[in-house]
């Protein structure tokens, strides 16, 4: 029969020779191979001590961004909630009062902002829908929790640390790639 590709390998069907049937040489060969693996570099990453850098397109937990003066970007427009295919995001808007200009960037802000991490599929559509660059997917995992209600992340879980008063925590949360205007 004519072969369709040039990758065909003919199966060898001739009876085994005496050496092959003795089986011990084959075992010996195998043992040399396994012994060689003792000296190979291990691909394991010692997880809690070392972490693997994520790919630049990794989508982890969400953060709510602040601008460089520490004001919240989010204006509670609800576009992220509309864009969310899993309907994981809920929010309540409130109006900025005089004297709160240092807290919120625009006149409207999110008084309550919740993401149900059990529903979230980390698709990143909220990030794309946001006109104010307020919500971003960071490079962290969703951590484990003991109760279901622990997975409903409120504003205190999501909001990025203040860039001026908590500089270090802010830099850490920002990570390598979240750009702040």
């Amino acid at each position, binding site marked *: 029969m004519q072969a369709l590709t040039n990758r065909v390998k003919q199966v060898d069907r001739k009876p085994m020779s005496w050496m092959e049937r003795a089986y011990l040489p084959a*075992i010996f060969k*195998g*043992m040399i*191979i*396994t012994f060689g*693996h003792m000296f190979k570099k*291990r691909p*394991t990453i*010692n997880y809690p001590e070392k972490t693997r850098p994520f790919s630049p397109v990794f989508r982890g937990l969400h953060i709510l961004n602040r601008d460089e003066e520490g004001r919240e970007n989010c204006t509670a427009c609800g576009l992220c909630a509309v864009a969310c295919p899993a309907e994981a995001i809920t929010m309540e808007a409130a109006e900025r009062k005089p004297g709160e200009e240092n807290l919120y960037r625009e006149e409207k802000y999110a008084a309550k902002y919740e993401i149900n991490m059990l529903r979230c599929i980390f698709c990143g559509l909220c990030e794309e829908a946001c006109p104010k660059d307020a919500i971003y997917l960071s490079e962290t995992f969703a951590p484990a929790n003991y109760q279901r209600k622990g997975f409903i992340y409120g504003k205190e879980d999501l909001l990025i640390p203040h860039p001026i008063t908590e500089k270090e925590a802010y830099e850490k949360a920002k990570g390598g790639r979240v750009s702040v205007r």
Partner: protein
Amino acid sequence: MLLNIDIALIIEKLALIVIVVMSSLVIAMYATFMERKVAASLQDRRGPNRAGPFGLLQPLADGLKLFFKEEIIPNFSSKFLFILGPCLAMLTAMMTGAVIPWGDKVHFFDRDISLQIADVNIGILYVFGVVSMGVYGIMIGSWASNNKYSLMGGLRAASQIISYELAMGIALIALLMVTGTLSLKTMVGYQVDGWWNICKQPLGFLIFLICVFAECNRTPFDLAEAENELIGGYHTEYSSMKLGFYLFAEYINMFISSSVMISLFFGGYDIPFVNDAHLLEKLGTNWMALVHAGVFLIKAVMFLFFFMWVRWTIPRFRYDQLMNLGWKILIPLALINMLITGGLILLQQNHWHF
């Protein structure tokens, strides 16, 4: 008086028994750790490294876990036998250590203390007797579980051990013809002065080695616990420390059978390429005993590593392949080996006259 027994002798033997039992327990403990580390490094993994430096406390953690797990005794099992099974396995594993010469002797309080618990002149027969008792632990445990899969595992173990015991015995007969003694101590003594028995009986050693693998239920002959066909094999119904005893007994067995192999074929406590008599004059009896015990331990660890190396290289045999290998290959080979050895000895005794 035929037996020269006094209080001092009893004390020294008791001390020796405690030391041997304790050290074989500790060695078995760390053999489990070594197994995991060797397995990891042969498979490019890291193995246990959380508990203590380099994971050295891992065996303790494992032991604690096993002790605190829930004990389950199945309702329909025969309770007495169910508990007896692992005890027997452990007991027989420990008993074999009695006749192995761990070193020559030490000199304390004007007494020469032999580093062997019992120098019986049928040493190797005693080993065989106790080792074949080991199968009772597995059989009783598997039967008492009242579980068909366990029973099948037990049956496999029993038939395997019985089949391989034959080849093992015949391979050993050839060795006995060469050395002319059954006492392990005398056998080691011959090897200290002359050639190691491995040089005289290479084929015999190979057969013996394969049979030891089968006797210890080690891969590639661990059909008794073939988890993909028999759930867990003979210890399916066991939990907590009773399971631990079975697994532990396997490691003690490994250590003891390595020791037996070392004594039989690898010169026991003999230091290779070193004239022991010269060294003895330099070091004195006690230090020499320490060196001997150390050398013995190094050899044992090398054998343990070999056991693990084989385990993580070769896949498990099929049951019919196992039986074929035992009955159709190893036993005839052992018989031929015995015949050839006998012929050569006969020729030698007749000063090579043809």
